[in-house]
């Protein structure tokens, strides 16, 4: 079945996902495209970081001869919150609080890219070298 996966800032439609209760099984290509995680001999890896599959718990993470990976099990292991709506097939994975707090405390301003009224995209980094007042407001 087709599942929309919201992971960090990514939004990905996985055409061949299996959502079963609190588990979300993805083919390895979908896993990478949806989340950035890749399955390697060391475990689940993203860039330099690898998370070993806990010994004895392989069945929670892998099935179909290692061709499908349970992204929800990895999220639980890492403390990432999960919310899913089964009626519309949408799964949202959030940042783990410890990780978010650590990145806030680095005091490095995280970059983002957003449109203006005319649809032109701007990134925080476009204004590097200037003092920037980032000011949030709303119409509501």
């Amino acid at each position, binding site marked *: 079945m087709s599942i*929309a996966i*919201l992971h960090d*800032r990514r*939004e990905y439609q996985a055409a061949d996902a299996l959502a079963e209760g609190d588990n979300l099984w993805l083919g390895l290509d979908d896993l990478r495209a949806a989340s950035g995680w890749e399955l390697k001999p060391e475990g689940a890896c993203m860039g330099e970081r690898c998370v070993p599959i806990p010994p004895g718990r392989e069945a929670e993470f892998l099935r179909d001869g290692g061709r499908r990976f349970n992204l929800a099990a990895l999220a639980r292991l890492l*403390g990432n*919150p*999960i*919310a*899913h*709506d089964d*009626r*519309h097939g*949408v799964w*949202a*994975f*959030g*940042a*783990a*609080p410890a990780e*978010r*707090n650590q990145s*806030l*405390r680095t*005091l*490095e*301003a*995280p970059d*983002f890219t*957003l*449109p*203006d*009224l005319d649809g032109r995209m*701007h990134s*925080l*980094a476009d*204004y*590097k*070298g*200037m*003092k*920037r*007042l*980032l*000011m*949030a*407001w*709303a*119409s*509501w």
Partner: protein
Amino acid sequence: MWQGLYQELKDRNFIVIAIALDSCGADAVRQWIRATEPTPPPMLELMGWGERERAAAGAPTYPCLIDEKHVVAELYNIVNVPMAVWIDERGRIVRPTESAGASDAFRKLNRADFSLPPDASAQAKAARTSYFDAIRDWVIKGERSAYALGADAARDRVAGITGQDARAITLFRLGQYLFAHGHRADALEYLAEARRLRPESWAIARQSWEIEEAGKAAGPDFWAAVQALGDRPYYPPAKL
């Protein structure tokens, strides 16, 4: 009104980047960015805009970005508006997220005739003026400004999130996605749950009310929630 400040300081290597946290997108914010009518004076008074700011008002020439998914709110832990972050030339945060010149004066508003008692009006103006003066000081003096915090002081002011906050943020994102894809009724359930888990986030509460019904973000539910704060602030004052 920020345009006046920007105009004054823009030749000093300074920029304002406005982020509209608005799930309803460009259509919801256009009339605020490109105003066709002047803001009514009582509203200006409520927001603490003094003569100086009013005289220098104009359409913004700094970037006004639209953040339908509240991405920036998540990245910078923004829980209300207006809130701002100061970022220096190297991309370091020198003042973490805090109220940007707003005050709790609005709580003394007489909602029947939209009048503000004189002390509240003065409070609103003082909060606005002191915040703007702090920005001027920083832009002119740079890291020598007392308002540009050193790393330890800045880090001490970073508000972290709890596990429950993180769950609320994730539910909010799910609700937003469903709303954006036309599943409004289902979206509302997740948004209500997000609001329940993180009542401190007025951005979550008011945005989700507004999705429920236009105008609800400033309606009776909002005022009841403000009332329920009791002695606690709606806008914790920026510690300048």
